[in-house]
């Protein structure tokens, strides 16, 4: 007379908390999640193919639009990959400035993550407080790069322009705001019993699983693996910076929250080092006007806020555009781990898991 059956429900592509157009096919038994199947591709624009058909320097604008929360990190990875391909040495000042922008960008991206993640769990005000602090950082980007979100910050061989007037004061003002902000988030969340209930032990992903699935970034570090490309394979000016890699061993949502908060503090620390030790000199290397490539292939990994972003470029002789252009985006690999994180989970945990992965569909679908 009675029979039970799994209720299939589509969370997304239009859903308030799938951060864009991620679609999760959930099999529900009441509130319990029995199966979860992420479906991507609703934001596919063919970035890699477009980049293969455009001149080398033009590809940057599409890296801006991949992970729109951390455009500078994408730009940096793209620029360094191509510099590696062409064998260009970037001036030291440019490397410092790149490091600085990249860390500001990490701060920005983590603020976006914290705000949206907290709002998914229901803390409305944290969202607006993070947006308040992010605004200051976006102003810095606007002053430096001319644009707030799609920065187009890097050039092959350095940077387009030197620091604008009053830049240091602007950055320090922003940091003052962010420092107070971090304290406020901690007051509102870190010890809050509801927040603890919602995050401790939720969406666990062990270190072995992380490595098996290629999950990188704060999720890997929250599982106890201190792998950070900034330390493992230093690029830009990271070899001259003093900073720590925060790690936790709990591998749950709360650990990731703590790791990211600590990373924000470390980012502030790195940018302050850059500001203090900023060397004089040009910001652009001498490069030919039209770049013509030799036969070659490079893979260059960098540490984006969400994990390892790698650019793989193959070039042919005399080409003005790359022969093959592939991007290893962190979100694409991280999102595979969602079914693994959602064993014995409830519907509300799906939202937490998606939030804690910090997915941005622009880079997953590319």
């Amino acid at each position: 007379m009675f029979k039970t059956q799994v209720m299939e429900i589509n969370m997304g592509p239009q859903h308030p908390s799938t951060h864009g157009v991620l679609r999760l096919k959930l099999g529900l038994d009441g509130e319990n999640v029995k199966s979860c199947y992420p479906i991507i591709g609703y934001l596919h624009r063919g970035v890699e193919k477009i980049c293969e058909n455009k001149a080398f320097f033009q590809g940057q604008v599409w890296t801006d639009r991949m992970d729109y929360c951390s455009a500078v990190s994408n730009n940096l990875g793209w620029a360094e990959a191509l510099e590696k391909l062409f064998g260009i040495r970037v001036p030291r000042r440019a490397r410092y400035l790149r490091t600085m922008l990249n860390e500001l960008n990490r701060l920005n991206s983590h603020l976006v993550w914290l705000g949206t993640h907290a709002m998914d769990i229901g803390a409305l005000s944290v969202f607006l407080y993070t947006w308040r602090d992010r605004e200051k950082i976006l102003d810095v980007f606007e002053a430096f790069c001319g644009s707030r979100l799609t920065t187009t910050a890097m050039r092959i061989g350095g940077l387009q322009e030197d620091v604008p007037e009053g830049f240091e004061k602007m950055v320090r003002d922003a940091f003052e705001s962010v420092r107070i902000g971090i304290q406020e988030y901690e007051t509102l969340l870190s010890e809050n019993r509801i927040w603890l209930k919602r995050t401790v032990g939720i969406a666990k992903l062990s270190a072995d699983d992380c490595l098996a699935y290629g999950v990188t970034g704060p999720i890997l570090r929250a599982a106890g693996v201190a792998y950070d490309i900034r330390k493992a394979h230093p690029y830009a000016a990271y070899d001259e910076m003093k900073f720590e890699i925060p790690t936790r061993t709990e591998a749950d949502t709360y650990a990731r929250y703590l790791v990211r908060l600590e990373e924000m503090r470390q980012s502030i620390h790195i940018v302050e080092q850059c500001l203090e030790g900023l060397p004089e000199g040009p910001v652009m290397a001498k490069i030919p006007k039209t770049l013509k490539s030799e036969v070659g292939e490079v893979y260059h990994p960098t540490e984006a806020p969400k994990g390892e972003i790698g650019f793989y470029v193959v070039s042919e002789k005399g080409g003005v555009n790359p022969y093959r252009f592939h991007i290893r985006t962190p979100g694409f690999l991280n999102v595979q781990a969602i079914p693994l994180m959602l064993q014995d989970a409830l519907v509300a945990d799906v939202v937490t898991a998606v939030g804690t992965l910090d997915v941005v569909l622009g880079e997953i679908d590319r």
Partner: protein
Amino acid sequence: MKKFLKTLIPTELAKGLLLTGKWFCQVMFSPNRGKSKLHIVDEYPEVPAKVQPRFRGRLQLLKDAQDEIICVCCMACIKACPTNAISLVAGKKEGRKTRIPESYDFELERCIFCGFCVESCTFNAIALNHQFELAVYNREDMAIGLGGVFQSIDKPSPVGKFSYSGKE
């Protein structure tokens, strides 16, 4: 026992309430349009938004001191544009050695404001100005060219078109 008391008395929840309550009082009792504003929002259309000097807005053809277009139709901007938003037809003009654009079409809906065109220009003939209020009702209005009716590419755009500022 301490843990039990901690579970029983939600001090950390109260702390959160105090923080939000603090902001509530501060914003509530600071005048909305006063000089010492504690809220973080700007009332945009009334108070014009400020942009940084390097802000990249709409493309504009620059003119020299004689009110003549500087552009000499070298086509560098067309080659640099990643989205093929620019097209121009070169022409000639009496009493000018270099070429002058007969038409210069800039398709706003395709522009991604990367600024590559401005960088590629060796004559400083174009610039991205500070206009960001670029919404139009008709798609045709997005095609901005020389002598356009709605927006002309060689005129500085009316920044603050949507703003109406009360006298402060």
